[in-house]
């Protein structure tokens, strides 16, 4: 997509980033001991912590990813919202209080509270690190997507920008700043989403979604002459070629020296050519948007409706709608989605996006991304179950979420924080449904990346709203990345160097080691952020959840609820969970695509590993605990 720099957005952006960094330095001066670096000294009010929980959790995945996926795949994006929230139930009902009673600073400490085992320390710190890194990838990808329309910068520049700012924040302050920053940002994100939703409902639905100052592109439909399934003549156009991709046929036409691709299809039993969008990578390294150079701006935002039905009658626009009306009208109407195909045209690589009319009824049901109804097979159904399992079980096992349990004083406060977080996050997720659907029908989608749906929707309603939302979204990414880097630097500096290697660092050195680790993880995250450009961030977060659920959750649950759990069992289960989930992810169809291979030829067709790796880790902790029971210290105490 091609974007102009918005100076209003730029102004708000710098004000916000300045505020975030300023706050960090303010709290940074108060941070001297290692306990305040890692857990803000256990002094944070429960309500602040609750909203900060929400701020932590409503990362790029929620705001950018879910809205984007709903905009592109309809209800399937909402599955993430349902699963992400359900995960809090596991956290609240099973983990929150017992965990609080056990631990000190990190997830590893809590797991190890009863055993003091070096094997647990090592495996848990590795798991914390891997989960954090996998959670960092989508944040960085989202950051890159955000700055493209905001600052007119390329994706990689955004990734480096976020990485650098976060490294500065973490190295200067640590957890105290991130809690207050998360609080501020979590609160703002919810307020702004309400504003955006009100705009959407007030705007209603229309067949011509023109945004402020910009008309929506009206897509051409040409009538060709056809003989033997081949286009032989199109008035005003020269026929260059015809290409079959899967079940679709595309025709390349030229006018005024510009090549364009059309979708060759049928409408009312008559042949028709529908305009498509293409990004062509030419053999000499140029990138053409709809057959022309970037600067010509012939590439369009998409997302419109082909038919609006209100009480069975077709209308051009509805005017303001209530929330229920909005959903039910969409359900009865027709939406045009743009689907992607890739093919080679001589020496050129073509990414083509063609319009596909989708019944609102289908759009508002699961199945467009995760096939469970029509066109489903065993793999696709297993994939759906696996995703829902990962989302449900992942939340409670995320190290950067667990770390917040320690930032309030009592278990009672931890509980109240969590419930406030659930309410705030739940409310927000219901809003994502409106924001995502709003983006789908308001002509704001960038076909190259679904992640920008919500901010671009805001842009359609005005530059000010867009700039504030982008700034908050950017701060969202900053805050989450900072929290993750603190968690992973804790795993390296505290768990690994201090506890596992028994270096017995002084308080001052511990903080220093943490900062060096933060720097290293930050650089690594920047590189990964560039490598995964273009993938929906919620999808990527699904992986982080699956790894967390497999590596950490069986260990935590058995430790809390089964007295015979042994230290060997815990360590083995963490390792099995990591290895199994990583292996399945690295051999998944999506990764196959990243390696430059055909996803259809991947070893298996499972995108999310939890369905296999979670039960495997559960089995491991159970069997290994029986085979290698814990040392008899406890038993002798009981019998004496």
């Amino acid at each position, binding site marked *: 997509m091609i974007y102009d720099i918005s100076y209003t957005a730029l102004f708000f952006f710098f004000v916000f980033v300045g505020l975030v960094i300023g706050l960090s330095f303010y709290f940074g001066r108060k941070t001297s001991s290692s306990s305040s670096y890692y857990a803000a000294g256990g002094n944070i009010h429960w309500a602040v912590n609750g909203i900060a929980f929400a701020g932590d959790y409503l990362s790029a995945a929620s705001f950018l990813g879910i809205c984007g996926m709903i905009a592109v795949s309809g209800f399937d994006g909402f599955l993430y919202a349902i699963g992400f*929230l359900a995960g809090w139930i*596991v956290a609240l009902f099973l983990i929150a209080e017992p965990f609080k*009673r056990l631990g000190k600073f990190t997830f590893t400490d809590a797991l190890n509270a009863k055993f003091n085992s070096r094997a647990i320390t090592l495996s848990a710190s590795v798991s914390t690190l891997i989960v954090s890194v996998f959670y960092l990838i989508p944040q960085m990808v989202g950051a890159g997507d955000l700055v493209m329309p905001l600052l007119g910068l390329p994706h990689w520049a955004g990734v480096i920008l976020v990485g650098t700012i976060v490294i500065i924040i973490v190295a200067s302050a640590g957890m105290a700043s991130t809690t207050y920053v998360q609080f501020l940002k979590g609160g703002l994100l919810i307020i702004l989403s309400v504003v955006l939703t009100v705009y959407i409902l007030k705007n209603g639905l229309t067949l011509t979604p023109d945004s402020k100052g910009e008309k929506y592109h009206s897509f051409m439909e040409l009538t060709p002459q056809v003989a033997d399934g081949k286009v032989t003549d199109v008035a005003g156009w020269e026929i260059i070629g015809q290409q079959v991709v899967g079940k679709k046929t595309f025709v390349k036409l030229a006018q005024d020296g510009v090549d364009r691709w059309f979708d060759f299809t049928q409408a009312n039993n008559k042949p028709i050519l529908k305009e498509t969008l293409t990004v062509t990578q030419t053999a000499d390294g140029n990138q053409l948007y709809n057959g022309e150079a970037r600067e010509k701006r012939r590439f369009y935002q998409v997302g419109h409706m082909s038919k609006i039905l209100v009480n069975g009658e077709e209308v051009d626009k509805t005017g303001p709608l209530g929330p*229920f009306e909005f959903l039910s009208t969409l*359900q009865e109407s027709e939406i045009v989605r743009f689907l992607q195909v890739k093919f080679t045209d001589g020496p050129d690589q073509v990414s083509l996006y063609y319009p596909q009319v989708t019944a609102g009824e289908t759009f508002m049901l699961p199945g467009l991304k995760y096939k*469970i*109804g029509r066109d489903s097979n065993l793999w696709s159904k297993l994939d*759906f179950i696996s995703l829902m399992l990962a989302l449900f079980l992942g939340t409670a096992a995320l190290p950067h979420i667990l770390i917040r349990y320690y930032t309030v004083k009592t278990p009672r406060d931890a509980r109240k924080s969590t419930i406030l977080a*659930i309410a705030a996050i739940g409310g927000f997720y219901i809003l994502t449904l409106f924001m995502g659907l709003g983006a789908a029908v308001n002509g704001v989608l960038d076909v190259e990346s679904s992640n920008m749906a919500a901010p671009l929707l805001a842009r359609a309603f005005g530059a000010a709203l867009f700039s504030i939302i982008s700034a908050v979204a950017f701060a969202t990414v900053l805050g989450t990345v900072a929290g993750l880097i603190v968690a992973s630097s804790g795993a390296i500096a505290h768990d690994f160097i201090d506890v596992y290697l028994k270096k017995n660092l002084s308080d001052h050195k511990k903080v220093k080691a943490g900062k060096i680790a933060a720097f290293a993880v930050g650089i690594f995250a920047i590189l990964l952020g560039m490598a995964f450009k273009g993938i929906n961030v919620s999808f990527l977060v699904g992986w982080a959840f699956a790894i967390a659920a497999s590596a950490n959750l069986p260990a935590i649950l058995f430790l809390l609820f089964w007295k015979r759990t042994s230290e060997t069992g815990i360590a083995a289960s963490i390792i099995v969970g990591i290895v199994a989930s990583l292996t399945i992810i690295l051999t998944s169809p999506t990764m196959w695509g990243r390696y430059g291979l055909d996803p259809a030829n991947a070893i298996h067709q499972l995108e999310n590993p939890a369905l296999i790796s979670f039960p495997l880790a559960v089995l491991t902790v159970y069997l290994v605990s029986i085979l290698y029971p814990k040392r008899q210290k406890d038993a002798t105490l009981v019998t004496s």
Partner: protein
Amino acid sequence: MHINNTHEEKESLTKRKSTLGIRLFFIYLLSYAGFVAIGVFQYELLSIPVLGGLNLALAYGIGLILFAVVLGIVYNYYCSRYEDEADQTEETQKGGTA
């Protein structure tokens, strides 16, 4: 006899709270699994209009989100009550032995 009275009191409180947590967890797990099961085995049901013109998928999905909040509030209410009760018993026992 009961030297470690306060400690035992605390343990019984912990147990009450965790039993409640586990029960509520299973209630939610069943509702959540129900959604997944309908999706996998009875996909057609999801398109049936149920509430204000919304199909079952939307109504169930939004319902699951709201239900989580409701269960959270219920959990907090009972846990706080258990904690207050435990505090009171502790105080009366202290009063009794003095």
